């Protein structure tokens, strides 16, 4: 089954603070009926100091849901409400020495219960804005809803872009079929009545489904899929630019991706431009991580778009040594 840490097992077999709490003055009930988890968090908050004096839980859920609830109560006891609101689902997972990717949602539920309980104490309405989908990328625990949201928000068209924005697909790559399906679904939606078709770049780089060998039998009823040729990859004809103009454009692109990398404690810098090859230095958490290739792929894509010509983006380590 799952590879649970000893800490998860221990909190499941001996849950702390379980059962009703007599004089609770903040109660948060949250759940996801589909995935089968539901959690009631009960807080006893000192009205003067706003310190959580006691916290109990009742949970309907799997081993890690119960362990996450138990961990949460231990973490927040003694905290002020303000401190407690800072507790992230990652904190809960870390407290338990990690959770399997499929089970990260258990820690998310813990955090939501906490927000709900505090809102309840304060007499506020709490509404859940978090929607959960089927887990697509198991390496980085990214679900279908998240991927679809990011694809829509950023008008993404390719698996590489999805990886760049969400990390999904950047590990073992087994989920690429699933990501392609989400992209195809959204593309079909976008192409709905009166909609503009996706930019040609997208069409070209999205892997087109291969027609099966026995196409004659299989595809009779299938909608025909228009496959753009790779030549359509470049949307605008390459404009004449000076090297300085080109470098300025390149810097602009790097500037646009920097915030995303910094969010993951990384950074990027331009090292050199040689013909159609752009050399960059990836820094911090980005360098050498398993995401490096995916990150560069994403940057390359943006460069191609911005420059209107086919360029390659490579790490500076690939730069030929001058003779």
């Amino acid at each position, binding site marked *: *089954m799952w590879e649970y840490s000893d800490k998860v097992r221990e909190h499941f077999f001996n849950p702390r603070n379980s*059962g009703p709490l007599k004089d609770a003055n903040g109660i948060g*009930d949250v*759940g996801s009926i589909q995935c089968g988890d539901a*959690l009631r968090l009960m807080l006893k908050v000192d009205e003067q100091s706003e310190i959580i004096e006691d916290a109990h839980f009742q949970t*309907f859920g799997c*081993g890690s849901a*119960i362990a996450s609830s138990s961990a949460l109560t231990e973490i927040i006891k003694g905290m002020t409400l303000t401190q407690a609101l800072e507790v992230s689902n990652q904190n809960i997972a870390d407290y338990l020495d990690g959770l399997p990717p499929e089970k990260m949602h258990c820690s998310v539920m813990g955090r939501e219960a906490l927000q709900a309980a505090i809102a309840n104490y304060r007499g506020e309405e709490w509404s859940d804005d978090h929607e959960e989908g089927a887990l697509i990328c198991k390496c980085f625990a990214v679900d279908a809803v998240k991927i679809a949201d990011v694809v829509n928000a950023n008008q993404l068209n390719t698996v590489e872009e999805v990886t760049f924005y969400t990390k999904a697909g950047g590990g073992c790559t087994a989920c690429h079929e699933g990501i392609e399906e989400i992209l195809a679904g959204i593309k079909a939606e976008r192409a709905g009545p009166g909609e503009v078709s996706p930019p040609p770049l997208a069409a070209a780089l999205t892997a087109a489904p291969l027609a099966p060998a026995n196409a004659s039998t299989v595809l009779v009823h299938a909608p025909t899929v228009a496959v753009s040729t790779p030549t359509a990859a470049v949307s605008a004809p390459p404009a004449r630019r000076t090297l300085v103009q080109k470098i300025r454009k390149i810097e602009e692109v790097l500037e646009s991706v920097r915030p995303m990398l910094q969010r993951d404690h990384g950074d990027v810098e331009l090292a050199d431009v040689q013909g159609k090859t752009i050399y960059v230095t990836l820094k911090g958490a980005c360098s050498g991580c398993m995401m490096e290739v995916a990150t560069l792929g994403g940057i390359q894509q943006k460069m191609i778009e911005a420059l209107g010509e086919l360029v390659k983006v490579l790490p500076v380590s690939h730069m030929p040594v001058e003779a």
Partner: protein
Amino acid sequence: MEAIYLDNNATTRCDPAVVEAMLPFFTEHFGNASSIHAFGSEVGKALKKARGQVQALLGAEHDSEIIFTSCGTESDATAILSALRAQPERNTVITTAVEHPAVLTLCEWLEKEGYIVHKLRVDKKGRLDLDEYRSLLNDRVAIVSAMWANNETGTLFPVLEMAEMAAARGVMFHTDAVQAVGKIPVDLKNTRIDMLSLSGHKLHAPKGIGALYLRRGCRFRPLLRGGHQERGRRAGTENSASIIGLGKACELAIEHMDEENTTVRSLRDTLEKGIVSQIGHCFPTGDIARRLPNTSNIAFEYVEGEGILLLLNKLGIAGSSGSACTSGSLEPSHVMRAMGIPYTAAHGTIRFSLSRYNTEAEVKRVIEVVPGIIAQLRKLSPYWCDKGPAASVDGAFAPTYA
């Protein structure tokens, strides 16, 4: 304490006699059955014997109707894809909502490829509506694929009758009998079943060996083309040791068929009654009057299956669950959902599946410990309040759902 294995629908242990029959085929009889020399011919003879043993268990008319494959999944895929390729003028597949993923996932993919797939619905007890079925049979249907026995609940479908109905409309009929073969008597020569899948590891043979029964005269297109093994119907050098193990396991299954339907059945009944009579708010799922003799699937309301399994496992007891959390998906078992089992119960379903290796003492032990485990988890459950579901008391639990 000895571990208690009650997960025989997931897989079974190899019978020692099976292992013994296989061993020489890793060492002295390592030859390739296709070779002309003595090394090969020994293996060839043994394969023929194994084919006969499988034939005997299935009651097939000819031994050439048995095609060895690598697993149940391959047999299922071979059958369904063959029917579609052999009859390009037919574009429809009829199956059921409760099939194993080996069939369902394939059918979902076929839908994406443009085929029409009808999934027959089931009622609360997991039973099909044969009138609905009849109304869907027409000359656009390439194949019907309905499981003989459900892996989660053990529910038996009336496949003999369904095969007759399909035959009357000139439609091919396949059954995934992976869970049925070895547990209930099968006599294919007296049925209208065209194709049947079985898998070795469900009947005390090794994993990674399966067979497809293909009625003589049924039009066929291979999944794997290449060498002439299996008369060109499944290319690839035979997994001879495993095939010989499967043959032996089939022979043993014939010997134990009565035991399966008397001793094992009564152990299962004792277990189920023992649990259900002690614990409130739990019920056996599926068509309990028509099911496999070894399977009991019990829904424990207001608790979640993985927790039950973890606590059972701590006591050395192995079962399985239809809860979402054990499957890696977000949804509880599609079988439970198809039967309309409420979510709070579907997540708490536990399947106990026995074999001829289980004993009365083991069953007794399980009956002893299950009530405590359920009580322990219900104490943690927000849906539960002292002695009953919280819904019946004030301040009922009604969480904000994502």
